[in-house]
């Protein structure tokens, strides 16, 4: 299994300091090459789950194994290296740095690569081609449409060859046509062997994944594998 979580629990404190449970004993296994949509209403805990899977947050209880390793107990430095090399993130708000060009934004993970790797010649251009933004490398995010910005974010997630792509509402800020284009891109990545976990509350987007997981009140209420739409 690429992802293996068991009995995961996570709670946050409200303004009064009272713990509010968000994830309540959740277990989930994801094999390499799966395309999983995680659906649920607002506050159901789907984004929190994604943050834990992406090593941006730690569970209060439970076990998290990534590719067989107990990453839940790793020190921050090691978890940062894991995020850098093996996990790619795509967010609803794109989170591109406005003062960097498209190429520099895609290149960003290399800044924090502790192996001292540099992108091979033409690698960024290749990624730009893959996401359909050929020739736009010198532009700044402010000069792009929302769909184009999200494609840059996908290219950034892939630049160091991440096996797992975690996408949190990646189509939330896009119109239906553009959103469809981004999901097509994810499907192509899955075909190339990547694992994609996509959080959405949009059933139409969710329907494009091969496995649909529904979270309700911090627990998995449904987990179905479906044929490709």
């Amino acid at each position, binding site marked *: 299994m690429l992802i293996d979580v068991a009995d995961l629990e996570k709670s946050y404190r409200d303004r009064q300091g009272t713990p509010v449970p968000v994830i309540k004993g959740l277990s989930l296994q994801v094999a390499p090459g799966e395309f999983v949509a995680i659906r649920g209403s607002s506050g159901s805990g789907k984004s929190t789950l994604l943050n834990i899977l992406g090593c941006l947050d730690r569970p209060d209880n439970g076990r998290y194994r990534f590719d067989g390793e107990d990453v839940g107990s790793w020190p921050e430095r090691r978890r940062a290296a894991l995020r850098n090399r093996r996990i790619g993130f795509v967010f609803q708000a794109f989170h591109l740095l406005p003062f960097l060009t498209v190429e520099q934004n895609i290149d960003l993970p290399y*800044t924090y690569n502790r192996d001292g790797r540099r992108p091979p010649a033409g690698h960024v251009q290749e990624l730009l081609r893959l996401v359909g933004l050929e020739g736009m490398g010198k532009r700044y995010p402010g000069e792009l449409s929302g769909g184009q910005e999200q494609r840059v974010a996908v290219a950034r997630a892939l630049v160091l060859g991440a096996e797992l792509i975690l996408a949190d509402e990646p189509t939330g800020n896009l119109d239906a046509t553009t959103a469809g284009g981004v999901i097509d891109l994810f499907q192509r990545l899955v075909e190339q062997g990547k694992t994609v976990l996509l959080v959405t509350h949009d059933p139409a987007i969710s329907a494009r994944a091969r496995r649909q997981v529904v979270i309700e009140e911090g627990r998995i209420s449904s987990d179905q594998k479906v044929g490709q739409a």
Partner: protein
Amino acid sequence: MSAARNLSAAVRVVSAMPGRTLLLMLPMIAGTALAMATLAIERGVSRKADEAAESFGLDLVTVRSGSRVIAGVSEEGKMSEEDVKALQQEVRGYKVIIGVRREDKTPVSVGSRSGVYKVFAVTPDWAEVRNFPAERGKFIEQDDLDNNARVCLIGRTVQRELFGDRDPMDQEVSINQVPFQVKGVLVERGASLAEGDRDARLVVPITTFYNRLYKRINLDQIVVQAKARDPVVLADLAKQVSAVLRRQHHIAEDQPEDVTVRTPQMIAETSRTISWTVFYMMLGLSGLCGIVAAVIIVLVAGQAIRARRGEIGIRRAVGATPGDITQQIWVECLIVSLLGGAIGTLIGLGGGWALAHWRQTYFGFNPNDIFHPLDLLGPLFLVVLGSLAGLLPARAATRLDPAEALCPSS
């Protein structure tokens, strides 16, 4: 390795936001510029003051008539040859003590050319004591004193103004309508803050001055040469001289002195065109700019951290550790401080140079005055202050929860 990548990330941020960078740099620029200019000015002023003291002689205690000296002109002479004799007998630690008479505005002419100059009535020792020997010819000798000889030595300004290109040696010059023969030309000494043009003077035997020029019994100045240049020795000498003259002039303990006794240190202090108070105020102001710079860095960079939550979150998501973020934000503040410090230093040096040029008399234009390596301690202190201030926003950035920072609602 990690420092290099965080440096490159910081450089990108700093260069991408010139407006914010300039805002952060301004107080640092002002502080360092002020510090550098102040130090340069102070050095020029101090050098001029030291030169003024040196022009009198660093081993001399000078006594002038009157309790105060206004614009270099003392009150009417009250000291006598008896005072000189009493000092010679009672003071310990001196090398030579001489009395001097002088007339500051004496008409002097050569043929159709004339001018008003200072005339010093001296003894042969004066040349050595005041370090003012003859460059050409001979200085006043004992024979000249004994014979009331009408001989004089002239300064270079007098030579230039009254003789032009002609050789003045053995020529006749009229001092207050009395003919004198030029027996020498004094060395050139230039101008000083304390004495003005030191070459606009003539020197005559002290006896001739009394018998042929001005019937003045009192001395205008007594000069005491110490055996050493040590300020402690000179201060002690000044004390002894004051005590003897008080007694000679029958001045009670609670009465002010009727003479002014000055050491080179006192001359330097009174010749300063900018007081120490102003100097320390300017340095204090520069320090204040440093504090303002630190506060601005904390506030603006701190505010920027809140605005940059998304950037910090995404950096964490793609592999930055909290240490990387601290380092990057701190390096950004360091770059701003260093850049501001460097620009301020250059502006300060330029300002010091311009002031030195513009007000030569006050600050003394000398390239060596403008910069001294130790001055860099001033800007360095401000830069360190600014970069320490940068630690606060850097630590705040570290505490940012990446999951929360990347949340769409944040």
